[in-house]
């Protein structure tokens, strides 16, 4: 009896240690950001006192975090939409068509899975400065420089290819007999059937683009175009910034990933449910 009691206490203590270790730093960030207590640089407070939103006001408006957040949002939204669209189109060809060169194209894309983005940073930086024929300008120092390089992602192409392959041929043939053309088959038959996979690649793409660091670092040098993760580092250099303001900016930067994570759980559940209903 006593041994089970003491083992329960030990367990609870261990749970507490684990949670404090992994969540504690976020707690300190949260409390400091909402606190009006004045702190020295590098100091945090753990006990909530004199709550205020002033830190957020200064961070967002004076420190222009709204601008960086807007930049990040533009990059992540257009980046994800383009990435998923381009991947879905490519996956359709790879999964549903037999054509000469398919194996070569697959290999071509597979190779990039092994290619760490970091090792092409320098040539990529030079490529971005080249003039693009149709646009008549280089994409360097524009949103496009942060968006276009992440549009091609082998992971999402292969994931969608796998799911599209699983769609029975009969469904496609039935649509064709009804007079559907290639595009209609793609949009009305295949895409709706792989919706759970589309959701998954959208979320993974979103997180992948939101977390980009090296690319936005080299793609723009205009401070007004910086994304939030890159700008955070430059905020800290400013001596007038107190820990309260810095943590407020950090929280603003964190919010989207946390929100998407919660959405991700639901999406995964929905995917599992959809699979369960279909049997």
């Amino acid at each position, binding site marked *: 009896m006593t041994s089970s009691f003491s083992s329960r206490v030990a367990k609870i203590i261990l749970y507490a240690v*684990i*949670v404090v270790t*992994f*969540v504690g*730093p*976020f707690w300190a*960030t949260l409390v400091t950001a909402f606190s009006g207590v004045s702190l*020295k*640089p*590098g*100091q*945090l407070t753990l006990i909530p006192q004199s709550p205020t939103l002033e830190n957020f006001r200064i961070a967002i408006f004076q420190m222009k975090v709204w601008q960086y957040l807007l930049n990040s949002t533009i990059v992540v939204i257009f980046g994800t939409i383009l990435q998923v669209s*381009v991947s879905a*189109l*490519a996956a*359709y*060809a790879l999964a549903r*068509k037999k*054509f000469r060169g398919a194996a070569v*194209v697959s290999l*071509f*894309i597979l190779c*990039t899975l*092994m*290619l*760490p983005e*970091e*090792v*092409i*940073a*320098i*040539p*990529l930086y*030079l*490529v971005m400065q080249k003039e693009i024929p149709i646009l008549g300008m280089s994409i360097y120092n524009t949103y496009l420089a942060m968006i*276009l390089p992440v*549009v*091609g992602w082998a992971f999402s192409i292969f994931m969608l290819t796998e799911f599209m392959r699983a769609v029975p041929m009969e469904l496609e*043939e039935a649509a064709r007999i009804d*007079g559907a*053309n290639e*595009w*209609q088959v*793609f949009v009305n038959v295949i895409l709706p059937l792989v919706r759970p996979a589309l959701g998954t690649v959208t979320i993974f793409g979103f997180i992948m683009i*939101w977390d980009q*660091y*090296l690319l936005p*670092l*080299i793609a723009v040098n205009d401070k007004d175009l910086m994304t*939030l*993760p890159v700008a*955070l580092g430059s905020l*800290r250099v400013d001596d007038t910034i107190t*820990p309260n303001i*810095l*943590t407020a900016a*950090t929280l603003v930067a964190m919010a989207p*990933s946390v929100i998407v*994570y919660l959405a991700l*759980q639901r999406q995964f559940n929905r995917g599992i449910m959809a699979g369960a209903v279909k049997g």
Partner: protein
Amino acid sequence: MTTTPQAAPNGAAGGKRLPKRRPRKTPLSTAIIPWLFLAPALVIFTWFKFYPMVSGFSMSFYNVQFYADSEWVGLDNFYKAFDDPDLRLAVFHTTIYVIVATLGASVTALCLALFLEGPARHLRIIRTAIFLPAITSVAIIAEIWRILFNSADYGIINATLGFLGVAPQGFLSDPDQALWVLILMSIWKSAPYDMVIFVAGLVGINRELYDAASVDGASPWRKFWHVTIPGIIPSISVVVMLSFIRGFRIFAEVYATTGGGPAGSTATIMTHVYKVGFEELNYGYASAVSLLLLLFTVALTLVHMKIKSRFTV
């Protein structure tokens, strides 16, 4: 009857007579359709992945000049790489980082997984909560850790240590400690993620094996060693290999936290490349080092695939 505009091209070919099967399209359009769907991806991949890769490869053999023709230097950049004491130090830091962080994260994750595995509600909540570091981007974690590990005596970790009677530490500003703080940060960020992979592995172990082991009178330790570990070997190999492959190109974690300092004590291969390339503008040499890193990564990836195929077959 009117045909819809979309159907017209198909209908025109075999519209008059009744074909035995559905009307065949002309071979040319059939051949072109897949390429139309692939075109956007191919353009993007070519321009932003393959072209940079090829041009990086060729730059490694040049002394790249901006306002004059670049000069062919053969293998000089590679010779320099093997001679460069800064690079040697960076490789050394990176290797320590990768090995310690990988082992640390895997062991921590395994302990967490064993302790927190199970369908109980409070376990699910704890697992979700401690996943927070895994979903937070590196730049943000870097900021939080810089504040936590502030070297002043009121920095939160130093204050805690002071409570235990330890003198304030320099942490990120101490050349002897900075790399270890970065390793700790990496373990802290990746352990929860690895834990999720291990939990999935643990769930997959056949429960009857445990029962059989109990019947045979196996101690918990033997059960762990002979049932649990073999059952999650595939998960362990994935976690370790991916951590190795990603670890060698570590950049953002270091750049956002210490920038390679203090006094170069946390310089890694990629922060060295960044410094040489973007600060000293020596593109040829930086490309050569990148190429060596790429070859090494590809070799590791091939090893990983080989190991993985052994487990899945």
